[in-house]
């Protein structure tokens, strides 16, 4: 195992020499004096990546603290920002949650440290996420989660199902599979407790949920794309063609591994989770294909998750912190190690073409039968709608989604009613919190 890793490393080093000229590296500022940086991130093996940074900046020492990610990190960050001390210099935040932290005033505007000049290094839609007003930049994009379809090749082969190219074909395939398997195999799964998953599917259709307007906001959780997508899925759920198991639960991994679910829609960071959670169960049987389209021949995609690196206003060395965030997410060395060690699908444009992404020895690619899955995701990344915004009260919106979908699944609300209730209750909450929103 160690030898394999060593070989990979040698391969990487030699390939980096040949391909260096084509990779666009970030311009890094000079930082003087001795600096200590603290970084909060949930990316595995980040401490190894950081050592490379310390080689470029011997005067900067970086300490990585892994708080486990998601809610755990946000709670601690929220508290530290409220308390006025205890926050790190650099912190990882998902795009959807970024506005709620920008809103606390606890994140530094990085334009002072040359962030705007790095704009062209990143996949275009990510910049709108870190620079919501097009002027201030509150974070450096780290990874993205463009959407694609994962599917079980063995099940498709067994029941003679062609890979669906449109949502229409997907629904037909679902019916065919249900009949052929006697209802034992579900075509897909609706992640009923993860609004970003649903939002990504509506995002594909051009759905807009939040928009800044003048001095306030417009929220349209019940937009036409959301209605279309939710009605479509509710139809499949009611017919029994798809299950509604929560994401990342033992229940889901068990069902997917046991061949009870034939497809799902996952972000670019998803395959790593499939490989590590199902291990040998159904290994080699999975493949990735582009998202089915509403319009035949189109190549639109949405995005689920992905994250950015922000600098807090509590940082004593925002210049060094900004340099670190920039290096970590756009330098070839870092992008490569973050992908290999942490499964981060690069937000850096040049990163999408790295040979490391198609390395056949990586566990996700092996789990996906050796397919060059990241080529599919890189293509999906290009199809992600650029104009997509989140609102600062998104955490509450996310929670309310679960409530309305639960009512819909119990048959208490129609999809349209569920979306209307989602819109109304989230609007009330945002207004109570003092936002000007309509």
């Amino acid at each position, binding site marked *: 195992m160690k030898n394999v890793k060593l070989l990979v490393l040698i391969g990487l080093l030699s390939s980096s020499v040949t391909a260096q000229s084509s990779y666009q590296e970030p311009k890094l500022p000079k930082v003087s004096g001795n600096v200590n940086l603290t970084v909060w991130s949930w990316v595995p093996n980040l401490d190894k990546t950081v050592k490379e940074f310390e080689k470029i900046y011997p005067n900067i020492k970086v300490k990585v603290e892994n708080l486990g990610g998601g809610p755990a990190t946000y709670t601690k960050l*929220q508290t530290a920002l*409220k308390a006025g001390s205890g926050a790190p210099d650099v912190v990882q935040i998902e795009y959807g949650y970024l506005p709620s932290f920008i809103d*606390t005033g606890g994140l530094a505007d990085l334009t002072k440290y040359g962030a705007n000049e790095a704009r062209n290094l990143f996949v275009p839609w990510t910049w709108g996420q870190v620079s919501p007003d097009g002027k201030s930049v509150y974070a450096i994009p780290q990874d993205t989660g463009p959407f694609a379809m994962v599917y079980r090749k063995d099940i498709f082969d067994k029941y003679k199902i062609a890979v669906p190219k449109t949502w229409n074909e997907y629904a037909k395939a679902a019916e065919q599979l249900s009949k052929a398997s006697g209802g034992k195999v579900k075509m897909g799964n609706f992640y009923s407790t993860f609004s970003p998953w649903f939002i990504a599917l509506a995002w594909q259709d051009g759905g807009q949920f939040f928009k800044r307007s003048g001095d306030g906001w417009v929220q349209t959780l019940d937009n036409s794309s959301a209605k279309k997508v939710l009605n479509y899925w509710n139809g499949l759920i009611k017919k029994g063609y798809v299950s509604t198991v929560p994401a990342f*639960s033992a229940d889901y991994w068990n069902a997917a591994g046991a061949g009870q679910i034939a497809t799902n829609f996952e972000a670019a960071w998803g395959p790593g989770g499939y490989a590590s959670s199902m291990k040998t169960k159904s290994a080699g049987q999975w493949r990735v294909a582009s998202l089915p389209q509403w319009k035949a021949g189109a190549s639109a995609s949405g995005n689920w998750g992905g994250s950015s690196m922000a600098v807090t206003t509590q940082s004593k060395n925002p210049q060094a912190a900004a340099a670190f965030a920039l290096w970590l997410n756009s330098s070839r060395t870092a992008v490569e190690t973050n992908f290999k060690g942490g499964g981060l699908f690069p937000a850096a444009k040049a990163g999408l073409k790295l040979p490391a992404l198609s390395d056949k020895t990586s566990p996700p690619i092996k789990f996906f039968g050796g397919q060059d899955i990241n080529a599919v995701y890189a293509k999906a990344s290009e199809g992600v709608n650029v104009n997509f915004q989140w609102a600062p009260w998104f955490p509450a919106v996310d929670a309310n989604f679960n*409530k309305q979908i639960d009512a819909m699944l*119990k048959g208490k609300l129609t999809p349209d009613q569920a979306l209307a209730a989602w819109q109304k209750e989230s609007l009330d909450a945002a207004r109570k919190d003092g936002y000007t929103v309509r």
Partner: protein
Amino acid sequence: MSQGTLSPPRPRRSRRAVSSTTPWLFLAPFLLAFAVFYLAPVLYAVYLSLFIKKRVGFGPAKEVFAWFEQYSRALQDTAFLQSLGNIALFGLVQIPIMLGIAVALAIVLDSVKGRAQRFFRTVFYLPYTIPAVVAGLLWGYLYSPNLSPINQTLKAVGSGTVDMLSSTVVLWSVANIVTWTWTGYNMITLYASLQNVPTDIYEAAKIDGADGWNLTRYIKLPLLRPTIILTFIFSIIGTMQVFSEPFVLRPLGYVPDNLTPNTYIYLAASRDAQYGYAAAMAILIALVTFLFSTVFLRFARLGGDR
């Protein structure tokens, strides 16, 4: 004068001087810790609860002093009131069941002698040694709709399955975890108090002809009464604080934010950064808990006087 010769005034005065400050010196560490870890957070929560967020356009909100606006908001917040309703229903059902089992177990255990007694005492107490989070994870697995061994058994028997994590059932799934964890703990308390009953009372009762059920009904249960009241009060306070179990079950299905007051308050503070609002609700919960336990104590005493 003679008094003066017996005990000289000087040392006496100094002893008196010492005695007025010494208790405070001994108390100081406690009082300091009490002030820092108990009073200060409570006072800070009260302070926080008087502020409300105000926003103008974009950017961070300002915290504005607003007297009791957060409290009136809480009292009009149907989700918050619902959480109180949930926990009241929870307590009304769960506490009598748990204490009923605990009393029964304590009495049975009290009449068993020897090695069996020690064995069962440990077995019943064991669940309490498991942290709430671990217990939640453990039961979460047992509840998982498709993985649950309970459901698999039901399926094998040919009966319908139950989704223990369904939002309408999950309150009782939590009640089951809490009962499982705390019954043994309460049993030990009750059992200890039974062990302290002097044997001559039993002997006297036996001479009077009380045995078996009568002994339990007329001797043991009345003697247990103060301890049952104590465990009841602790259970009321504990019930108001149910948090870990529902929180651990959240990723496994849809658990409403306001299943219990504490989950709702925690999310208001940590997820929505509504510190003032969370503080106001927390103080209301403290008052409600205080009210419940006082009312219960009053009723329990009334019953005792009769």
